[in-house]
């Protein structure tokens, strides 16, 4: 059975599908629905990842994972991924995200995580415009690019499976539950 995020990505792609003789621009409604659906595919992928790493992967834990998933917010994930951007991580989380085998703070997040974060922020921004700002032009290419980027970011994340990668993912999952804030930041 395909996962929910993959189902959503396929739905987003179907919205952009053209019949062989179809010419001219696609209706804006299809472009905007596709962008919004692609964002939700990534959002649900991240929820599933966080909950599996924090709760566990056994089928018997699925109800508990779904309950935990309800506590994760769009804004909290944005705040979390904002801290991975740039060549160096935000200092407030660098020590927490450092490899468990190392002492001191990590400088940069691994590429697979930085890329997922950048794609998430981009997709979230596009989704907001797609759903709420009809003055912001969005092209069919924009919608297709986001699907390509989200598929690539998920594939890269899944492929990163060294011990240090799993360690980082676990720490990042905890940080996501804390909405990206370890201390009393506002």
């Amino acid at each position, binding site marked *: 059975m395909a996962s929910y995020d993959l189902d959503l990505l396929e739905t987003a792609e179907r919205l952009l599908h053209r019949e062989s003789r179809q010419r001219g621009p696609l209706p804006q409604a299809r472009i905007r629905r596709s962008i919004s659906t692609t964002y939700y595919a990534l959002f649900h992928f991240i929820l599933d990842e966080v909950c599996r790493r924090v709760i566990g992967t056994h089928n018997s834990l699925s109800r508990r994972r779904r309950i935990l998933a309800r506590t994760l917010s769009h804004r909290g994930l944005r705040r979390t991924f904002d801290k991975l951007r*740039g060549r160096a991580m935000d200092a407030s989380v660098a020590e927490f995200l450092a490899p468990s085998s190392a002492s001191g703070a990590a400088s940069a997040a691994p590429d697979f995580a930085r890329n997922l974060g950048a794609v998430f922020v981009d997709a979230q*921004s596009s989704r907001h415009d797609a759903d709420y700002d009809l003055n912001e032009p969005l092209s069919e*290419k*924009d919608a297709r690019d986001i699907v390509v980027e989200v598929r*690539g970011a998920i594939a890269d994340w899944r492929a990163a499976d060294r011990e240090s990668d799993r360690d980082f993912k676990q720490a990042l999952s905890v940080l996501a539950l804390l909405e990206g804030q370890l201390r009393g930041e506002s």
Partner: protein
Amino acid sequence: MQADLQTLKRIAFAAADRSALRSRIEDIVFDPGKDEWGSDILRVRVRMKRLDEIDDGELVDLKRAIRDDVSDLDERFPAVRFSDAD
């Protein structure tokens, strides 16, 4: 850290110069704004000739190059979008 828009435009064109799509780019426009959470962002609109003929993978590579290079200079998230110049 925030850079001035002319510098960012130059950086974006420099990123485009490394791509096979440079000749298709008519202009790159930076528009500072706020996102839904009130954070500063940069809307980056890349106007391209014959946009619908360009391979999706090539566009994604260009988008990522601009995003990475701009992010090195400016804390605002660059939301890169494409539109047809024709």
